[in-house]
Every structure is written in C-alpha cells, then in structure tokens.
C-alpha cells in the first residue's frame, strides 16, 4: 500500500473515483500506481470496470427526430398557457371584486332592506373574506418554506 494513512475502504472509493475520472492529477497518478502494484486493488479496479462496461453496453433508445424539432414548441406552449391562466385569474378576480363591491354598495345604500339582515349579510361576507385570506396565506407560507413543495402530497 503506497499510502498507509488511507483505510482500505477509502482506497476502494478512490479506485472507483479514478475509474470515473473524478480524481485530480497527483491523486490519479498515485492510484494508478497502486492498481499496477497491488493485485487486490487491480482486481477491484477490473471488477468495477466490468460493471461500467456492462452498463455502457446498454444504449438508450433514440427518439425520432421530429420529436426533438417540436420539443421547444411544446415547452413554449406550456409557458404561454401558464401566462394566459395567470391573466385569466387576475381578470376573474377584478371582475368578481367589482361585482361584489357594487353589490355591497347597493346593499348598504338600499333603505328598504332590514338593517339586521344587512348586518348579517355584511358579517357573512366579512367572514368569508377572512377565511379566504387565511387559506391563501397558509398556502403561500407553506410554499415559501417547504423544500418538498414540488412533491405532491
């Protein structure tokens, strides 16, 4: 063993890193010498190499060219549709907000409706608004701090 400070396991890991081209210049030379000198390490190297060659024998199936030609277009369509959904959502919020505001204004201005009923309707709408804000805030807060937010629950 050229380096007595390295535990056998560490050497085996370095042999693998050497095979994967993940070692720097000096370390790479050191491991290469070790493999040439020590039959046990040579055996480990050869075994790892055989596995690598076996997996490299498996060639991934090629996709017909036209799929690649259309690939960007599909991504672009998704982006475009995503933007259109955001615009539609904003538009819906504006329209409904306006309608609700108008309805509330007429309700408050209408002298023929019983004030108790008016108060009840206002409280109902106020409660729903608080509920909506609370749910939205919770969703947004979780999204911000949750590192697994891409994983569907």
């Amino acid at each position, binding site marked *: 063993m050229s380096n007595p400070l390295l535990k056998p396991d560490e050497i085996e890991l370095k042999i*693998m890193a050497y095979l994967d081209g993940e070692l720097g210049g000096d370390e790479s030379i050191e491991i290469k010498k070790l493999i040439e000198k020590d039959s046990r390490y040579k055996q480990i190297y050869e075994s790892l190499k055989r596995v690598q060659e076996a997996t490299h024998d498996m060639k991934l199936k090629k996709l017909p060219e036209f799929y690649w030609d259309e690939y960007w277009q599909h991504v672009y369509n998704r982006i475009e549709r995503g933007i259109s959904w955001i615009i539609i959502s904003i538009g819906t919020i504006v329209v409904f907000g306006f309608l609700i505001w108008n309805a509330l204004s007429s309700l408050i201005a209408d002298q023929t409706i019983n004030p108790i009923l008016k108060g009840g309707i206002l409280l109902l709408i106020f409660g729903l608004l608080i509920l909506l804000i609370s749910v939205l805030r919770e969703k947004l807060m979780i999204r911000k701090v949750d590192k697994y937010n891409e994983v569907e629950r």
Partner: protein
Amino acid sequence: MDEDQQIIADCQMGKSESYRVLVEKYKTRAYYAALMYSGNQDDALDLSQEAFYRAFKAIKTFELGKNFYTWLYQILRNLCINHYKRIRKRNIVFSDVDGAQNYVDYFSDIKNPGEIFEETERREFIWKAIKKLKPTEREIILLKEFDELSYREISEVLAIPIGSVMSRLYYARKRLAELLEELQ
C-alpha cells in the same frame, strides 16, 4: 459568468426569449432522465417538458452560481416521483392492496427494457441484474451510468454529501458485479 448563468440572469430580468437556448441544450439529458423514471417515451416527453416549464416559472428563485441542470433535475425527479405515485395509486385501487409497498421504488414498474434501451445482445441480462438492485442502489447507478452525472451533481440532486454518493455508488456497483456474475 458562464453561458447558462448569463441566460438565467437575462430570464430573471424578464428577457425570457433566451430560455430556449437552455431548453435546446438540456432537452436530451432531461428526456432520457425522465425516460429512466417513467419507462415510456410519451410520459418522458411530457414530464421533461413540464419540468422545463416549471423551472421557467420558478426561474426568479434560482440562485445564480448554482448548476442549472441539477436544479432542473431535482424538479424533474419530483415530477417523476409524483407521476409514479399517481400510477401506483391507480393500480392499487384496481388491484390487490397487498401489492402496495411502503417505499418509493420508481423503477420497478418498468417491465420491458425495450421501452428504454436499444436491442443489444446483453440487454435483457444486464437489465435483469439492475432490476434486482435495491431502489436506492438502482437510482445511483442510473444517475451515474445513464444520466452521466458527476459525483458533485449527484450529491446536489440527492441532497447528500459527496462521500455518501461515493460509498453508495461503490456498494451499488459491487452488488451489481455480484449479480452479473450470479446471472452469467
């Protein structure tokens, strides 16, 4: 600043048209990565395109200086896991509940290697050995050998230290060598 970082910086400033360059650059790797998880071409195309779309949506949160591909890969991997879980759930509803597993073994449903790999003499034999690995071993072998990620990239994707990547990969390869010998 390298090309990727420049493009992302442009996208973050609202010049989104340059995003196409990133898609063209990484589409092949993303597609094949998705193919490994999903096992069929249609799903792989759909999942990889969705990953690019979600990455674009979240581009403002990308920290400049980090590797774009490993970030995209994490999004893609999560999408694939969700896809797998949806299929699994659907299958469980219609089949025997005893078949349910309590871990995410997202390559186990790929029955036919012909969906992923070209016809070669040793294809069935090597695939059989790969399928016998534990899910974590199989994943790291696929990340290294087929997705051709570096140790650093794997460490970022799986959120584990490089030392753990090396030991996990080493034992997975050792196990695969044993299985190849057993099956020969």
